[in-house]
């Protein structure tokens, strides 16, 4: 079970769209995961495997660098799926 947070500054608009599309991507890949949304501040103290976010958040989330995955388009399910698949391979979660 992989735990993913989708993060935007406020944790209610873009991160929610991201969550929906990350869930679809996981289903498509057959990877079991839990996806939650968070704001930049509410992520503190949480445990997780990955953060999916936008490039603008890079500085605010620098301390999680190795766990960050960036997407430029929250509505592009294929792009999200490809990006995640690459990261999962890197992490050794899938073959």
């Amino acid at each position, binding site marked *: 079970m992989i735990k993913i947070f989708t993060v*935007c500054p406020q944790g209610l608009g*873009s991160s929610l769209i991201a969550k*929906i599309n990350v869930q679809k991507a996981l289903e498509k890949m057959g990877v079991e995961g839990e996806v939650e949304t968070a704001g930049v501040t509410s992520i503190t103290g949480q445990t997780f495997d990955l953060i999916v976010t936008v490039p603008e958040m890079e500085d605010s989330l620098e301390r999680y660098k190795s766990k960050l995955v960036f997407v430029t388009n929250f*509505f592009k399910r294929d792009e999200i799926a490809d990006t995640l698949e690459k990261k999962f391979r890197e992490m050794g979660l899938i073959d």
Partner: protein
Amino acid sequence: MLLTDLLRPNLIAVNIHVKDWQEAVREAGRLLVEDGAVEPRFVDAMIEVVKEFGPYIVLAPGFAMPHAKAEAGCIKSSLSLITLAEPVEFGNPENDPVYVVAALTAADHGSHIEALSQLADVLANDSVVGEWANAKSPEEILQIVESYS
């Protein structure tokens, strides 16, 4: 709550003239204020978010979704949508210029999820933003939503 519960006909306007991104956010926000969905200060809050965090709200090519926290003056969960007569730059290298601005206000973290999920389904089709940009009336915007739902 469905997408059409958030995106009501009086919250849609087409072919709006604006000179920059701030005015675009204000116009989309004005529809929310006139509807009684937000207090006027919510509109300022949406602009402040972009100033503070950058143009991350341009979520897809041509499409921006400004929003702010419920505490910034949300009265009821709603989505307004305007199409721009001339596109504006938000400063997002990947997704500028913007033709469609949809301002979101959510009263809590739960009730708008189904509606946003539906919006995500609609916008998963690359052609939708372009179709919205060319729509001649609010009714046509809703018909496009309907055709992809």
